[in-house]
C-alpha cells in the first residue's frame, strides 16, 4: 500500500459496527425470541419442575403452604435468565461475573427470606430480634427457608444454564459483523469460530429429558401414599390420582420443553441461514412462532381427549423382565463363583480356624450428662462473651455484604440510589444498632449473673435442670470424669437392656443386679463399680494411667451387655 493510500485511510468512511440489537439485523438475530419468548419459556419450564417438588412436599408434610413458593421460583428463574442475557452483552465483558452472580444470589436469598416469612406467616417480632442477634442460625436455619432456598438455588442455576445454552445458540455480534459483510470484504482473521449448534440443541434436549426423569420420579412419588410409606406400612401403597396442580406443572413442563425445542431449532436455523448467506424474506420468525403455537396447542388439546391408559401391565412386564435379567445375572455370577471356589479349593489347605470377631469400637450414643456440675464447668464464663462477639461480627459482616451486594447489583443495572434516603436509613440503623448493643450488654450481664448463680447452686438443684443431649469427646474429659462416664454409660446401656438403676439404689446394690443378669461379667462389674466409687467419692487424685485398666473393664462389661 502506498503512503498516500495509508494517509487516506482515516478519512475514508468507516463502516459502522452493527450492534446485535440494530433494527437492520432484527430479522436475523430474532430479538423477540431471545429477549421475551425464550426467557419466559425457560422460566416456566424450570418453575414447573421445581413446583412439582413443592407438590410432593405438600403431600409429605400435609401442609398446603408450599405452592406459593412457585411464584418466587418464577421470579428467580426469570431474574437468572435476564441476568445471563445482560451479562453476555459485550459491554459487560469487563464486569466481574462471579462477583455479580454472588451478589445476585445474596439478594435472592434475602428476598426469599422475606418471602418465606410472608408465606409462612412467622415474621420475627421485636422480642425475637435479640435472640436472632445472639444466635444467627435462627435467622437462617428455618426448614421452609432452607428447603425453598435449595429449590430456588437449583432453579436459578438451571435457568442460568439454559439461558447460557440459548445464548450460545443465538447469533453473536461477531458473527453478525463478519457475515453481514460482502464476501469480498471479509478478512479471514475476523472469521468467528464456528459453533456446533446442533450439539447445543442436543444438549438442551438432554437437559430437558433429564428434567423429565426427575419429574417422572416426583410424579411417581406423588402417586403413592408417601406418608404411609414413611410410617413403615409398605403394604399400604395406594395409588392416588394426580393433583390438579401437579397435572398443570407436568403439562407446562412438557409443552414449554417442546416450545423451547422449537426455539432452539429456530435459533440454529437462523445461524445457519446467516452463515450460508441466505436472505430471509417475509415473516419467517413470526410464522414459526405462530405455527409452533397452533401445532403444540392443537396436539396438546387433542391428546387431552385421548384415553389415558394404565401403566400397570407394562410396569409388571418391565418388572418381570428386570427380575428375569437379575436372575440370569445372579445365576451366571453364582455359577462362575462356584467354579472359581472349586478351583481355588484345589490349591488351598484346611480352612483356618474361625477367629473371634474383633471388638468394634462403638459409636457413642448421645448421652445425658448425669452430673450437671461437671459439664457447665467445662464452659468458661468468658465463652458467652466470645459467642456474642462472634454473632455480632457475623451480623455486621452479613449486613455489610448484603448492602454491598444489593448496591453492586443495582448500580450495574443502572439504578441510581438516593443517598439522602440511604443516609436516613443508615441513621436509623445506627440507632437500632446502639439500642441492640445496649440490650445485648444487659443480656450479657444477666447471663453472667445467671451463671454465677448456677455455680453457687446445690447439686440437687442442678440435677433438676438437665442439660440437653450432646456428644462428648472422651479425651477432652479429665481422668476422673472419664471413669464416671464409663460407669454412667454402663448404667445407661443396662437400663436399655432392661436392668434400670432405681432412684434409691447405691452403686454397690446396682452392681449386684448387674452380676445377677451377667454372671460372666462379675469381675469386670466389680472393678468398674469400685473405680466409679473412688472417682465419685474419693479425694485422692486420679492419674491418666489409672483410666486405661478401667476402660478395659468397661469394654468387657459393654461387650457382655451387648451379647444378651
Amino acid at each position, binding site marked *: 500500500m502506498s503512503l498516500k493510500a495509508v494517509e487516506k485511510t482515516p478519512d475514508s468512511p468507516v463502516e459502522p459496527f452493527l450492534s446485535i440489537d440494530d433494527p437492520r439485523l432484527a430479522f436475523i438475530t430474532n430479538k423477540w425470541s431471545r429477549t421475551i419468548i425464550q426467557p419466559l419459556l425457560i422460566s416456566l419450564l424450570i418453575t414447573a419442575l421445581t413446583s412439582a417438588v413443592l407438590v410432593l412436599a405438600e403431600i409429605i408434610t400435609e401442609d398446603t403452604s408450599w405452592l406459593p413458593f412457585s411464584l418466587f421460583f418464577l421470579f428467580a428463574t426469570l431474574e437468572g435468565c435476564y441476568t445471563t442475557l445482560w451479562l453476555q452483552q459485550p459491554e459487560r465483558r469487563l464486569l466481574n461475573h462471579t462477583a455479580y452472580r454472588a451478589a445476585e444470589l445474596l439478594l435472592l436469598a434475602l428476598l426469599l427470606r422475606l418471602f418465606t416469612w410472608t408465606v409462612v406467616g412467622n415474621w420475627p417480632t421485636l422480642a425475637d430480634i435479640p435472640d436472632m442477634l445472639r444466635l444467627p442460625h435462627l435467622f437462617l436455619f428455618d426448614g421452609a427457608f432452607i428447603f425453598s432456598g435449595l429449590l430456588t438455588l437449583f432453579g436459578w442455576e438451571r435457568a442460568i444454564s439454559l439461558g447460557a445454552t440459548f445464548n450460545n445458540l443465538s447469533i453473536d455480534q461477531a458473527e453478525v459483523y463478519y457475515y453481514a459483510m460482502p464476501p469480498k470484504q471479509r478478512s479471514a482473521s475476523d472469521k468467528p469460530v464456528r459453533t456446533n449448534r446442533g450439539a447445543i*440443541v*442436543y444438549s438442551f*434436549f*438432554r437437559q430437558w*429429558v433429564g428434567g*423429565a*426423569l426427575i419429574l*417422572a*420420579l416426583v*410424579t*411417581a412419588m406423588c*402417586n403413592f401414599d408417601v406418608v404411609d410409606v414413611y410410617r413403615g406400612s409398605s403394604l399400604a401403597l395406594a*395409588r392416588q390420582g*394426580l393433583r390438579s396442580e401437579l*397435572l398443570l406443572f*407436568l*403439562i407446562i413442563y*412438557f*409443552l414449554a420443553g*417442546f416450545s423451547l*425445542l*422449537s426455539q*432452539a*431449532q*429456530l435459533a*440454529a*436455523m437462523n445461524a445457519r*441461514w446467516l452463515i*450460508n*448467506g*441466505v*436472505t*430471509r*424474506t*417475509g*415473516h*419467517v420468525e*413470526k*410464522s*414459526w412462532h405462530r*405455527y*409452533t403455537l397452533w*401445532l*403444540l396447542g392443537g*396436539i*396438546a388439546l*387433542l*391428546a*387431552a381427549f*385421548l384415553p*389415558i*391408559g*394404565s*401403566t*400397570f401391565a*407394562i*410396569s409388571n412386564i*418391565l*418388572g418381570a423382565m*428386570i427380575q428375569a435379567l437379575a436372575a440370569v445375572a445372579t445365576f451366571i455370577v453364582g455359577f462362575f463363583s462356584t467354579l472359581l471356589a472349586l478351583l481355588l479349593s484345589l490349591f488351598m489347605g484346611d480352612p483356618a480356624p474361625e477367629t473371634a470377631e474383633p471388638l468394634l469400637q462403638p459409636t457413642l450414643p448421645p448421652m445425658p450428662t448425669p452430673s450437671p456440675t461437671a459439664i457447665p464447668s467445662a464452659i468458661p464464663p468468658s465463652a458467652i462473651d466470645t459467642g456474642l462477639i462472634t454473632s455480632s461480627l457475623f451480623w455486621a459482616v452479613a449486613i455489610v455484604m448484603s448492602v454491598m451486594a444489593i448496591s453492586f447489583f443495582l448500580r450495574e443495572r443502572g439504578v441510581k440510589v438516593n443517598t439522602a434516603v440511604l443516609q436516613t436509613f443508615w441513621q436509623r440503623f445506627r440507632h437500632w444498632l446502639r439500642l441492640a448493643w445496649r440490650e445485648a450488654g444487659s443480656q450479657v450481664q444477666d447471663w453472667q449473673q445467671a451463671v454465677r448463680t448456677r455455680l453457687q447452686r446445690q447439686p440437687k438443684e442442678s440435677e433438676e435442670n438437665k442439660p440437653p443431649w450432646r456428644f462428648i469427646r472422651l479425651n477432652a474429659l479429665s481422668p476422673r470424669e472419664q471413669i464416671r462416664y464409663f460407669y454412667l454409660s454402663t448404667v445407661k446401656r443396662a437400663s436399655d437392656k432392661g436392668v434400670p438403676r432405681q432412684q434409691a439404689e447405691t452403686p454397690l446394690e446396682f452392681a449386684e443386679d448387674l452380676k445377677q443378669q451377667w454372671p460372666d461379667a462379675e469381675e469386670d462389674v466389680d472393678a468398674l463399680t469400685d473405680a466409679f466409687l473412688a472417682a465419685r467419692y474419693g479425694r485422692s487424685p486420679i492419674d491418666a494411667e489409672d483410666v486405661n485398666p478401667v476402660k478395659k473393664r468397661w469394654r468387657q462389661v459393654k461387650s457382655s451387655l451387648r451379647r444378651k
Partner: protein
Amino acid sequence: MGNFSALILILLALAFFLRVDFIFYVIYVSVGIYAWGRWLMPRAMKNLKSRRLYDRQAFWGEVVPVTIELSNNGRLPIPWVQLQESVAIQLKHGEPLHQVVALNRGETAEFHYSVIARRRGYYQLGPLRLATGDLFGIYPEQIGFLPADYLTVYPRITPLTQLGLPSRLPFGTIASHQRLFEDPARPMGIRDFRSGDSMRQINWKASAHSASSGDTRNLMVKTFQPAISLETAVLLNLHTPDYTFGNRQDVAEWAIEVAASLAAHLVNQRQGVGLISNGIDPLASQQQGFDEVTGRLLRPSHAEIQTRPEAFMSAAIPPRNGRPHLIKILERLARIEAEETVTFTEWASTACLHLNWGVTILAITANGSEAVCQSLHRLVRTGFNPILITVEPDAEFGLVRERARRLGFAAYNVARPRDLDRWKRPYAGAAP
C-alpha cells in the same frame, strides 16, 4: 436427532416402571408432533409448485431478469422453505438467489434475480434447490428441485450499414451502381428522352406536363434505381487445424461474431441468409451435460467426435429471409463450437451443392491459403458468387487478395473489430 429416540425410550421405560400414567399424555403429544412432521413434510414438498419466468434468448451484454414463482398449493402453511438457485459463474449478475420464506396456504411468492449475457453459449439456469423441514428438527429436511431451464446467449453482433458485396442476381432490394440491374419497382426520377429508351419507360404524365408549359418536343422517361438481390449463404469454417494454434479459440469466436454480424445485417436488408458450418453443435449429442463452473453446454469428447464427425456437425440452414430465420441462425451460432471435423477444402464444395445458382457465399475462414482459394474458385465455376473473409491477422493479405481477384472472387481480411468499420460507414459507393 438419532439419539433422541434413545433418550425418549429411557424416559418411557422409567415412567412405565414407576407407573406414571401421565406418560401416555406425553407419548400422545410426542408421537403427534413426530407424526405431524412425518405426514406433512413430504406433502408440503409435493404441494410446492415453482416455475421460472424469463426470456430464453439474450443478446450479448444484455441483462436478463429472471422471476421464480413459488406457490404453496396445499391446505396447510409451510413454516419455512429455503430456495437456492444455481447460476453459472459467467451469468452471475448481482446477488444470487438464496432465500428463505414462509408460505401460508395458497400463497405465492415471487423472487427476482438477473443474469448477464457475457459470452455466447447455451447455458443452464438452475436447478432450483428447495428445502423445508419441521419446527423441532425431529424429522430430516425434505429436499426438492425445480429442473433447470436453458438460456441461449447470441454471439456479439456488430451493426453494419452497408457491405457492398457483388451479386449476380437482379431484382433484389439492395441498391447497386450497376445499371444493368435497374429495378422497375424502384423509380428514382425522370429525365429527358434519349434515343434508344424503351417506350415503356416514358412518363406520360410528366411529358404532358412539360408540353403544357410550351415545350412540346421533350418526352420524359422514368429512371429506376439499380438493385440486386443478394441471397447469401454464410460458409463458416470452424475446422480447428485451419486456425493458428496459439489463439485458436479467440479467432474462432471472432469468426462466429463476424458471421452473426453479417447475417444480421443481411436480414435487416431483407435478404435471404443461410448458414453452413463444419463446427459442431453440442446439442446434437445424445448425452448432454453442462459445465458446473461456467454453466455452458459441454461438447462431446474429441474421440467421440472423431468416430463420426458428420453426426455432430450442425445441419445447414438454407437461405431465407425474415427475423425468425435470423433467430434460428443466431441460436445455431450461439451453440456452435470449433472442432476438428472436416477440412474446408473437402467440405466446401459438397456443402454448397443444395444452394441455388448465383447465391453469394460468404466464406469465413481463418486464412486465404491457396487451397482455400482453389476451393472457392471451384465454387465460382459452379455458378456461385463466393467472397472470402479471413479472420486471422495476415500481413501479406495483399497477395491473397490478388490471388482471389485472379480466381474471380473478392477477398477481405477482418481480423479485428475495427476492420468492420469499412462496413459501418454510411453508403458512399462500392466496397473496396
